[in-house]
């Protein structure tokens, strides 16, 4: 576990050495700023209630494409340059490396999520009686969970390839597929459809968390996605042993 922490620290620092961190944060904040401004203006002109989802919705959509950018490097680069050999001939277990990488990505993403808190904060300041704090906490708790799951998918894709672009597209593909599965399944029913429905990322977020309700079912779902994809990533790293 300590090794995972050591690896996470290094990887987190690397985000700020590379331009990826700055590019992702820049795009995110500019786009969210525009959405926020529009929504704020609308609310002011028409007297609607303050709506924190005006920035959270776009944030989630941007993350669908930003998460692959944040995770693509993590494992792929180690495999391409061969540095993974030095890492795994040190007394480091495969899962410690995978978990450490994910932890670093999560810490970076958490930073981004925390920065977006500025919008609800402003909303709260300029309205009375302010935002419903309970609902806001629910939204953000859900956000952390969902991003954690997305990052695990990204780490998995990065473990599969020694090429960052391939890792980027695979994780984006999985994430978008899990996102829009609902549109495809609208008319379907039966146990298969129920199961696929359960897999849809957006349902677990939009149906409950976004209205501020944290349901155990949804928490279990996101935690399971993290566990499953980190487990698969570990298996892929291990596969060098029997290939």
């Amino acid at each position, binding site marked *: 576990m*300590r*090794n995972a922490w*050591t*690896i996470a620290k*290094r990887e987190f620092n*690397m985000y700020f*050495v*590379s331009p990826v961190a700055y590019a992702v944060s820049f795009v995110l904040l500019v786009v969210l700023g525009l959405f926020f401004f529009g929504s704020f203006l609308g609310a002011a002109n028409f007297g609607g209630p303050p709506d924190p989802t005006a920035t959270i919705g776009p944030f989630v959509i941007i993350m669908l494409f930003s998460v692959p950018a944040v995770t693509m490097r993590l494992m792929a680069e180690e495999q391409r*340059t*061969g*540095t*993974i*050999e*030095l*890492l*795994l*001939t*040190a*007394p*480091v*277990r495969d899962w410690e490396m995978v978990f450490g990488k994910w932890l670093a990505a999560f810490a970076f993403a958490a930073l981004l999520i925390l920065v977006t808190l500025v919008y609800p904060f402003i909303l709260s300041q300029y309205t009375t009686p302010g935002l419903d704090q309970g609902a806001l906490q629910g939204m953000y708790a859900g956000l952390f969970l969902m991003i954690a799951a997305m990052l695990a998918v990204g780490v998995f894709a990065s473990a599969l390839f020694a090429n960052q672009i391939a890792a980027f597209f695979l994780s984006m593909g999985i994430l978008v597929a899990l996102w829009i599965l609902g549109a495809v399944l609208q008319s379907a029913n039966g146990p298969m459809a129920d199961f696929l429905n359960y897999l849809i990322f957006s349902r677990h977020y939009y149906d409950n968390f976004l209205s501020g309700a944290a349901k155990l079912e949804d928490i279990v779902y996101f935690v399971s996605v993290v566990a499953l994809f980190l487990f698969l990533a570990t298996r892929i790293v291990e596969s*060098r*042993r029997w*290939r």
Partner: protein
Amino acid sequence: MIQVELLTKRYGERTAIKDLTFHANRGEIVGFLGLNGAGKTTTMRILTGYMPPTAGGGRVAGFDLIAESIEVRKRVGYLPENVPLYPEMTVVQYLDFMAELRRIPKREDRVDEAMETVHIEDRAESFVGNLSKGLRQRVGLAQALLHNPEVLILDEPMDGLDPQQQIEVKKLFREVGKEKTVMLSTHILAHAQELCDRIIIINQGQIVAEDTPERLNRQLAGGDRIHVMVDGDGTGLLDTLKALPGLTRVRAVRDGEFEIETTPGRDARPEIARAVVDGGWPLLEIHREALSLEKIFIELTKDESAESRA
């Protein structure tokens, strides 16, 4: 310190190494000699716990290679081929990171010591990506020495070093080789001869010879090959040379140039030189050709393939 038996590694259909059995003792430098693709890197990856063998096993630093891989890794220092390092870290950052993974107490001191050992302390703040091949090699070496390991495994440690650096690195290996077990791979015979107490020659995944450099030399050298060059076309010299005793084969390469093979164990150069000068030919050059690794390989593998055909 290193003791392996019947190590075999298959990648799908391809067998990379087959039934390797060898050992290396404390205070010994063992050279792993073979052409590219002979199975050196595969063997070293197994010894360092990067991957397990398909069959066979052994002990390194007193622990089982497969069941106690983490314990083995704690006690082994490894320099992989081509020295993969993180280019975006400084030398100090990188070594500190590796030291933290290895749970080294008083990390800062050990990192400083390791950098001094390989003479890289003046580049401590340089980014690894900006270093030359030789300097990167030294950073990799510092990394391998950080935790003062009992066993050092070095894959092609001389690759990419200039002659001056090679001399320095060899000195370093001899120093650490006194109290550690050092196993290094190379495809250059001269390096192995100069540095190693024992040489294991590996070809197509199998050990074809194993001995001290001196004995290996004697065994492999067979006869000498001597080149003679005279001014002019050397008319008549061929017959003169053929008349000398103890020469197995004499042939003219071109006008004035001859190639002579002799029986093992004796240096025929004085006799040949005398015969040439006495006969009145102006001798320009006479030298003995050392058998290169490639030739030794041809020798070693020739016998084998002949046997398998039979």
